[in-house]
């Protein structure tokens, strides 16, 4: 019996030993892992979204900032009687009780996490709810920083808009601290400088119990607003241009000819970026997206059009630089130019008679340029067009920027499988045919004439420290001073002379040089261009106005341009 007792004793010792090993394994070896699990059990994180940086204009006027938005939320763990609260809330915010219940169910995350029932309450309702608070336990008003667009319609093509991050974007942006449900820039500056503008989100660390109810706030990290950005845009000018363009579709660009700073970049029609802040507006957004007017197309940067008579300046420069003609070489315009069996007309049926280069530019004579074009040939025109930055993006970085098209013999052979016809040289010489350019490209070209042959890089961001760098970006095209002088004088005549096509742009207080363009359309009125710079003596700014179906370039486009120059004088730019 004592022998058995001994075995029994050993069995007991063995079981104690087993327990010691079991505890050691659980607490020492697996301890850290279980500790992590226990922390996961009790700690929840809820983010506090940081406001984005403010976007200012060149004078420090805010274009986009943030405002307080009020949301009505329910904190589930504070709810006492769902029914009465839902009914009471339903009366207050005028949403069906069933609808509120649905929203609550759909967005419920955890007992401590506020469920947003309605966004963007107006202040009157906010104070009403605050007063009524005691009657509705669990209902709170929560504040949130929301993007505020001071000039929603007139700047949306530059600023862009915000949207919720999607799965694909999240995948490659995760490493940069982007989270699910984050708002991300979808176009324009908001997209281009998203990482710079977005703030550093804060968060709250909460301790919860087994049912997820908040027990204690353990810690809070304050959110930090993102970095501010100053644009080269002058908001007063921008907004003014947007308004005087009235119901026209088209674009307008104002640029500093010496450093490429863009003072205004308008595209019409436009949209209000505020609609993207609320998913309620899904239908409105879809409507805009499918609208035939294409309000999301930034016509200044991504719209492609034939530059028409404005392009004659390229042909003129090419001819002068290559000594194909002298400034005094004359051609006769009889109103029509015959090439083989085809007839090419001038816009003036009765013809311009004998014209030198200045007269041809001032009158925008087609026949002169048909003759000049066939004299110098398509290859030379293409070469100069490319040098002046047509056919490639300007690098303004407002995506998607259109690169346009400069036709060449090789291009035609490769894409169309055909040889170049001489007739095509003629339409090319007056800026029609295959040639396509964006208003911004045209603006840069006009600036290059104004500044004496330097191709500048268009700038939207004002960065004082790097001003020197920006100067370096300008590419000197080495056009002779004589050529430039003749072209500029011709452009002055376009506006100054009574017969000049851009005479409508004339101001008594300012010497403006310009060139109009009229792009014939199959349907409807032609597209209208006015391009120009001022002051003539020491050019500072170039202005390009483009109106879809604006008729002749000398009409509304020139009138709008003159108003812009006048406004710029008011604003002390000129």
């Amino acid at each position, binding site marked *: *019996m*004592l022998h*058995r*007792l001994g*075995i*029994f*004793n050993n069995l*007991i010792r063995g*079981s*104690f030993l*087993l*327990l*010691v090993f*079991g*505890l*050691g*394994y*659980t*607490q*020492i070896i*697996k*301890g*850290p*892992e*279980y*500790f992590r*699990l*226990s*922390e996961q*059990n*009790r700690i929840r994180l809820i983010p506090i979204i940081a406001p984005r940086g403010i976007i200012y204009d060149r004078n420090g006027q805010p274009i986009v900032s943030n405002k307080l938005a009020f949301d009505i939320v329910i904190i589930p763990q504070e709810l006492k009687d769902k029914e009465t609260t839902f009914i009471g809330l339903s009366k207050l915010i005028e949403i069906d009780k069933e609808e509120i219940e649905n929203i609550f169910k759909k967005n419920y995350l955890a007992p401590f996490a506020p469920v947003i029932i309605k966004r963007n309450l107006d202040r009157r309702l906010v104070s009403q709810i605050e007063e009524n608070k005691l009657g509705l336990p669990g209902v709170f008003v929560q504040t949130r920083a929301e993007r505020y667009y001071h000039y929603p319609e007139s700047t949306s093509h530059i600023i862009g808009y915000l949207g919720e991050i999607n799965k694909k974007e999240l995948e490659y942006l995760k490493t940069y601290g982007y989270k699910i449900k984050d708002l991300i820039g979808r176009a324009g500056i908001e997209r281009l400088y998203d990482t710079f503008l977005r703030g550093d989100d804060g968060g709250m660390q909460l*301790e*919860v*119990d*087994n*049912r997820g109810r908040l*027990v*204690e706030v353990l810690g809070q990290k304050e959110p930090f607003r993102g970095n501010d950005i100053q644009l080269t845009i002058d908001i007063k000018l921008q907004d003014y241009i947007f308004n005087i363009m009235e119901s026209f579709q088209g674009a307008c660009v104002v640029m500093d000819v010496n450093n490429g700073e863009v003072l205004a970049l308008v595209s019409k029609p436009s949209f209000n970026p505020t609609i993207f802040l609320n998913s309620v507006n899904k239908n409105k957004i879809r409507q805009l997206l499918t609208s035939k007017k294409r309000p999301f197309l930034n016509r200044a940067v991504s719209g492609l059009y034939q530059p028409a008579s404005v392009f004659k300046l390229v042909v003129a420069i090419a001819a002068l630089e290559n000594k194909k003609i002298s400034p005094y070489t004359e051609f006769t315009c009889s109103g029509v130019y015959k090439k083989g069996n085809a007839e090419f007309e001038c816009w003036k049926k009765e013809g311009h008679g004998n014209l030198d280069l200045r007269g041809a530019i001032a009158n925008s004579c087609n026949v002169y340029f048909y003759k000049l074009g066939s004299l110098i040939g398509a290859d030379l025109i293409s070469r100069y067009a490319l040098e002046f930055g047509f056919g490639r993006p300007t690098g303004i970085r407002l995506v998607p920027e259109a690169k346009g098209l400069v036709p060449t013999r090789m291009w035609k052979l490769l894409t169309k499988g055909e040889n170049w016809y001489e007739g095509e040289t003629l339409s090319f010489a007056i800026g029609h045919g295959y040639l396509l350019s964006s208003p911004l490209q045209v603006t840069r070209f006009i600036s290059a004439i104004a500044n004496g042959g330097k191709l500048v890089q268009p700038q939207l961001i004002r960065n004082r420290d790097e001003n020197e760098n920006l100067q370096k970006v300008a590419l000197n095209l080495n056009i002779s001073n004589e050529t430039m002088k003749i072209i500029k004088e011709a452009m002055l005549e376009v506006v100054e002379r009574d017969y000049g096509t851009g005479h409508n742009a004339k101001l008594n207080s300012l010497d403006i040089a310009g060139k109009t363009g009229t792009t014939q359309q199959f349907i409807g009125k032609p597209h209208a261009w006015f391009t120009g710079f001022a002051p003539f003596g020491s050019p500072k700014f170039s202005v390009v106005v483009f109106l879809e179906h604006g008729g002749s370039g000398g009409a509304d486009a020139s009138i709008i341009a003159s108003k812009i120059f006048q406004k710029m004088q008011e604003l002390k730019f000129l």
Partner: protein
Amino acid sequence: MRAIRVFLRKIDKALVISTVLLFLIGLSFLYSTTYQRELVFLEKYTIRQLAWFIVGLILAGVLLKINYIRFIDFSYPLYFLTILMLLLVLLVGDIILGAQRWLEVGGFAFQPSEFAKIVIIIVLANYLGKNRLRMYSIKTITFSFILISVPMFLILKQPDLGTAITLFAILFSMLFVSGIKIKHLAAITGIGISALPILWHFLKPYQKSRLLVFLNPNLDPLGAGYTIRQSKIAVGSGMLLGKGWQSGTQNILNFLPERHTDFIFSVVGEEVGFIGALCVLLLFFIIIKQGIKIAYSTNDIYGRLLAVGIVSMIIFHIFVNISMTIGLMPVVGIPLPLISYGGSSLVITLIAISILLNIKINRPIF
């Protein structure tokens, strides 16, 4: 005064001190488990447990005055009294948490199944002691089986699987120490294992799911597996030194169910860590060691068998309970002696220990 001094000299001091220490430790953790941040503070549990301790001490003291041989003499009347109480429980007992275990007498609710454990030890000590020369016989073994099967059946009906299994463990240990033949022991084990599928059939659904979850803890992490998972997290997260008294997050944030009763050791593990858990184990080890020592030191076969029965009962509780909290065993409702909340278990453990002391004091001296 002299009587007290003699009593103090005779009594097993290590056993008494360990018992009191374990109770106090248990009480402090009971206090900790019922303390919850910003929720209702359930002080009454601690006070009630203290009251039961005093009741238990008085009973243990009174029983110490009676020579343990008298218990053996009265084993059959006690046995029938127990069966009567178990029947009563099934007829008029209170149902708590789906099980009918409690009898109410004068405002005190107690569990006859707890009482049954100690009576079974006494009855078996009596029967096996009388038949100590016939331990080779199948008849002896069969009859001892029949002795425990009646109360075991009634307890299973409650249902109280834990206590029923404990009775079996007690029988097994006492038969073993009594000198049962090894081949018989093997045969019993064989029959037991082959009877498992039949027993499975009689289990309640929740008992089945507990066993299934033990085999695969990921089976139902929010349902039956929840308790065991949370318990493992609690014990494990205590690591070496623990999170501190009343600072166990699994405890105070209510992640651990039943933490004042069957899972109180999880709180011990979480709040005082491996070191603290080892201290508790050490105190239990002292109690068991003293029990074994008493079994060795007496020449009286009845006293020795009683001691073995009591030791087996206590060690079985300790082992199953602690193993359960760290997932080494399936969840069967077995309390941790002296620590878990529960009056009947506490009083019965105190009585069991008083019987151990009794055996030492009243051992025959030749």
